[in-house]
């Protein structure tokens, strides 16, 4: 058993100056290391050791005894699907309940159909799903534009909130934006002046 006592900090504070400093070597204690709020005797911390006995730990043992030998158990009633539900080929059948909160659609849905033909150890399964997710986003963007319902990127990404809590960064962005606009304006003016010449 390894015992540490905070009253004996020198025990774990290795700072022998004779130790050769390498590139990846940091002094001990580091400036980013704090022990300020840990009491000298950790046994005084409220509740210390109340779950020391494994009998007081809910996860001992990890697996409880059971007589159930089939993967589904005694299922009983089953939910009726009203939309396409993708079922892993590693499942024996459709589970008795399922979410299916967003049915597949369009090209992304076709890609999801393809992905679910492969097992869960297959990269084609997961990478195709990730690709389908990105195409799904693009499909919604295009669809929203055609419906005249463009996304409000500023609100959805809460940019105003971000800038509110990062005033320094806001100033930098405004400054850089002003410089960029100024450079463009100067470039356009110079170009026009050359055209006139």
């Amino acid at each position, binding site marked *: 058993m390894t015992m540490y006592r905070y009253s004996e900090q020198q025990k774990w504070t290795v700072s022998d100056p004779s130790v050769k400093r390498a590139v990846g*070597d940091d002094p001990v204690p*580091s400036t980013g290391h704090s022990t300020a709020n840990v009491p000298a005797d*950790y046994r005084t911390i409220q*509740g210390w050791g109340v779950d*020391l006995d494994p009998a007081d730990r809910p996860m001992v043992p990890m697996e409880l005894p059971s007589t159930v030998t089939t993967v589904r158990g005694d299922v009983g009633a089953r939910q009726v699907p009203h939309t396409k539900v993708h079922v892993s080929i590693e499942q024996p059948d459709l589970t008795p309940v*399922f979410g299916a*909160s967003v049915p597949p659609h369009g090209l992304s849905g076709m890609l999801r159909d393809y992905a679910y033909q492969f097992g869960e150890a297959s990269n084609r399964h997961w990478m195709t799903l*990730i690709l389908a997710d990105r195409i799904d986003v693009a499909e919604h963007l295009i669809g929203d534009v055609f419906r005249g319902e463009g996304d409000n990127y500023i609100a959805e990404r809460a940019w105003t909130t971000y800038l509110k809590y990062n005033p320094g960064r806001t100033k930098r962005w405004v400054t850089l934006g002003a410089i960029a606009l100024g450079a463009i304006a100067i470039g356009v003016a110079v170009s026009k002046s050359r055209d006139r010449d």
Partner: protein
Amino acid sequence: MRAMTYRGPFRVRVEDKPDPEIQHPNDAIVRVTRAAICGSDIHLYHGLMPDLRVGETFGHEFIGIVEEVGPAVENLKAGDKVLVPFNVCCGFCYFCSRGLYGNCHNTNPSATAAGGMYGYSHTCGGWAGGQAEYVRVPYANFGPEIIPADISDEDALLCTDALPTGYHAAQMGDIKEGQSVLIFGAGPVGIFAARSAWLMGAGRVVVVDHLDYRLEFVSKYGPAETVNFAHLKDPVVYFKKITDYLGFDVAIDAVGADGSGSAMQAFAGFGLKAQAGNAIALHWAVNSARKGGTIVIIGAYGPPMNLAPVGSIFNKGLTVHANQCPVKRQLPRLFEHIRAGHIKPSEIFTHRFALEDIAEGYRVFTSKLDGCIKPVVIPGRNAA
């Protein structure tokens, strides 16, 4: 009803959606009174979970009032105030019957690599989440727990995931008296893991992060030693040195797929998509544990592969414990700890947002703005 909806990576909004309906005799409909944004929601917000569809509603931490129950539900009735564990579980399959409620085989048709979870992509069952006004709760005879009268709403809200998950992490560490515990991540789960490690009899608890405000919080709440890895050239070498070159008895990865601290890991995960996110915390945990020690993976990773030093796990003889927390098994003991004052969960809540402002909540939480540790989401206009 009004519900948060995913629009694409880094984008969410609130929309009108149809109210959920009873679809199985063992269903219940719960009116959400409080929800939370979880650290693992960040992985969704960043678009890291496969089969995450535009229009999905997140939220696996919520409490509420039962509005309606199916004909087979006997343990709940309309009007009951319940907390709903994040695991969607049946209670009778091979795995649930063994207490592995996070691994239920009857609630996720789309994958066997993960159990069912509310609001966590179609890879986790396609269940609508609780960042909404109403939620469908399947297997209502088994999953939801009536909130005891002496447990506050916001303490109960944290009993749906963050607290039991942190407590579970410390248990999976199999901590012996006086042992040293290193926890990567000072988010809510890391904070609760630190507090729980002392309950298990740890002798030293060190929490690692790069955000000073979170380290300051856990240093008092744990309490815990804290290390800001941004001050270090090589965190693993440092952890060896502060343990007399032994390494820690137990190392816990409470970060998951959204780690910081390695450009190579970030490029492989976020840039190339060659791995699921950034697994630097797991990498450091493996390398910081002593030979023969235990590492715990409690931070959320998706099913695709990750870059982790498997050879070091083998050569150091490490024991790896990992699992989604079976929340129901933790609740009786956690209620005792809350009553005894050993843990005060709701002290970690720092922000409250109306559901209508949830985009702001996600931004504040994910960008670590305004000293945010954990935000509460309250349905109803101007509720917060």
